[in-house]
């Protein structure tokens, strides 16, 4: 009797296996962590205002840079060519602090935890939005920290650091942030 129940359960599973359309990786509700982070960066590009001096001209691209170790190929392919705030998005990858130049958003990977202060010092004083998932990023001088909350990824904002860099964060973004630090 009980064996029959288990048999039915397994048959249902088998049917689901065959019948359910095997979804594309990007189906809503099933993102990989890297896709989620890329999506956040794209959103931040839409919700942050840069000073006019940050762009060479009206047609200048918005550059998202990545520094440190990580699987960025996917983010690179997804973000390149998208349009945010009327500008085309370009993606660059840096391995050394000295190379970082000309980007508007810089994502710092956890591999750079030891060199964080160095990286933040080397950036231009204005015009670069720093985003990272390194622990206590905002306390160390960062602007937007991505934090894991259980199975979700959310973000904290340090408004002081952002304003000092001449960046204006939309109130919509501040409302959704887990914490707004100063």
């Amino acid at each position, binding site marked *: 009797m009980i064996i029959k129940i288990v048999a039915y359960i*397994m048959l249902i599973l088998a049917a689901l296996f065959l019948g359910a359309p095997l979804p594309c990786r990007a189906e809503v509700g099933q993102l990989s962590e890297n896709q989620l982070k890329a999506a956040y960066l794209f959103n931040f590009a839409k919700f942050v205002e840069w000073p006019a001096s940050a762009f060479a001209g009206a047609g200048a691209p918005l550059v998202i840079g990545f520094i440190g170790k990580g699987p960025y190929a996917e983010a690179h392919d*997804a973000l390149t060519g998208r349009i945010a705030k009327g500008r085309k998005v370009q993606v660059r990858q840096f391995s050394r602090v000295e190379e970082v130049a000309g980007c508007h958003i810089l994502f710092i990977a956890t591999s750079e935890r030891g060199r964080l202060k160095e990286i933040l010092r080397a950036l231009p004083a204005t015009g670069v939005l720093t985003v990272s998932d390194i622990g206590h990023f905002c*306390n160390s001088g960062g602007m937007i920290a991505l934090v894991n909350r259980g*199975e979700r990824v959310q973000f904290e904002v340090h408004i002081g650091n952002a304003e000092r860099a001449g960046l204006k964060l939309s109130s919509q973004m501040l409302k959704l942030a887990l914490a707004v630090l100063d």
Partner: protein
Amino acid sequence: MPTQSQSIMSPFGLWVKDALRLVCALALCAATWPGSAGAETLPSEAAGESEVSVSPAETGGADFLALGLEDLMNMTVTSVSRKSQRVSDAAAAIFVITQDDMRRCGVTSIAEALRMAPGLEVARIDANKWAISSRGFNGRFASKMLVLFDGRTVYTPLFSGVFWDRQDTMLEDIDRIEVIRGPGAALWGANAVNGVINIITRSSGDTLGTQVSAGGGTQEKAFGAARYGSQLGEDATFRLYGKYTNRNSMDDLSGRDANNSWTALRGGFRVDADPSVQNTFTLQGDVYHERLHDTYVDSVPLGTFSHASTVFGANLLSRWKHSYSDTADLDLQLYYDRTDTDLGIFTEVSDTFDIDFQNRFALSQAQEVVWGGGFRFSHDSTTSPTSDLTVTPASQDSNIASSFVQDNITLIPDRVHLILGSKFEINSYTGFEWQPNARAIWTPNRQHSVWGAVSRAVRTPSRGEQSFSLYQPGPLVPRGPGLPPAQLLVHLAGNDQLQAEELIAYELGYRVEPTSTLSADLALFYNRYKKLSTLKSGATLEPAPQFPQQAALPLTLGNFGKAETCGLELAADYKALPWWRLRGAYSYLRILAIEAEQGAIFTNGKADSPQHQVSLRSSMDLAKSVEFDLWLRYVSALAFTNASTTAPIPVSSYLTLDARVAWKPWNRVELALVGQNLLQRSHQEFLSQQIATQATQVGRSVYGKVTWQY
């Protein structure tokens, strides 16, 4: 000579094999399904984002970028992509139980949560005792697994076993439990023969705020816990917790109360500090007091008697981690652990001091080396209020010095890794032991990986095994006409010449992730054990000094045993629908040969672990704030042998179901109702014959819980 070959499986066992073949075939079909075709239609851009224009030519299927901030905040990351990235762990049979898994299954203790892992046998002996092991040789004091709680070793040095009632904390503060079957990567101690269970709690920075929970039910009579976490200055966070549990007694095999209820009161703290980006520091401690009711049976001379055992424990642990760079760091850990146990037949006070360090650095572009060492000092003192169990000397110190080294060699970047390592130990029982292992992992692409390992592991004898003396009732011997038969005793004795048990394990594993919603993990093993400690009977009866007028049959421990086991473990994770996730685990264990030389006997070695185990979990997110979870488990039969009469004592197989419904009426409050062991009125899971207590049955139960967080 191999004895029974255990080739006759129950009909259910055969059926499970066929079903597995079907599922594997389907999984292979899924694996060869064309990858993401990007053929989905793009959702239209959200209103108000008019400056973002998306042309199909530009997107190429990356529609996740169209999600708004609010959606991203609520999205759960598929856990298949959050598995441990450490290569050395990937080259092993590892299963991670997450905080979410534990919450949704409705388990109320760490021991019960371990049932989710493939390859672990978890049997509840009674309300306050469990027998947990991996890949065979289960028992209340199963000695072949290493259990670590935030880096602190928790087996009792006296018997090399784990008292699972004491391994507890506020379950919501556990980040994950890593279960690694097979000889632990050479990083851990000489008891990681069949596996390592690593319980890791969350940093206090992740548990800020207040959380209070309380509830009650039939088996979990009443429980309550509270935790408060907050910032401590600029760089540090802390939490404090307190927890009370009161558990009901389970019935004996004839349905009468078997007097094994227990209560526990526990509290603790944890401080985490990041004084600089390169340094992290943790200090944590717990203190607990338990009152356990036990009903001992077959005790000499008292027969059956009840006792209220008390346990007091305290521990303090500090850990400092310094990161030189991304590829080099240093870990230093110190802890102190004290337990004071009064089991009625035996009392023990034990103190342990341990210091460990670990250094990781890049030896070259292609090699990462981890090495370290540690020293553990423990002191215990025991008394034996009844005369049946004694340990000689009553009080003793022991020292263990150990070191390890592991080299992770990248043969082909991102494709092939070879990991060579070894652990070395000098202990006060058997002197020098070494445990080398070699692992290799091949990752042809993101979706598949294959790993293999050959390891040698060693289990050093515990202080108890070296020097214990236990009297148990033995066979009845007829004396002659008109006289009642004489009750012989059985005298089990340790042996201070005992050597360490040895294992050579061969393992193979395969992981596949055909899509982002499906993953499967298969591990195969073949173990050869030597020098297993078993009992051998002496030639003649001897007198029993504590029990005049009774003679005893001497049974002495020695390294007389050999065994060969093999098996497989399969875990699968399938997100059938965005709101419905299925997880299954299957374990198969086969004892190919088990023998004891020179007339020694294996009292329970043949069937103290089940041949088949199946676990199937269904997690559904209904509506916006309702969770519905079902957990179906099957464990096949066990067969014990009565030590005195050598009569077989079977424990039949069981199929059971747990269910949990949880509802969050407001953001801060969760109400949950959990039913456990619902399919049968009651079932027996184990029989403990070491320091034997009344055999009990696990019954159907239900409890409700309210959790409030702010």
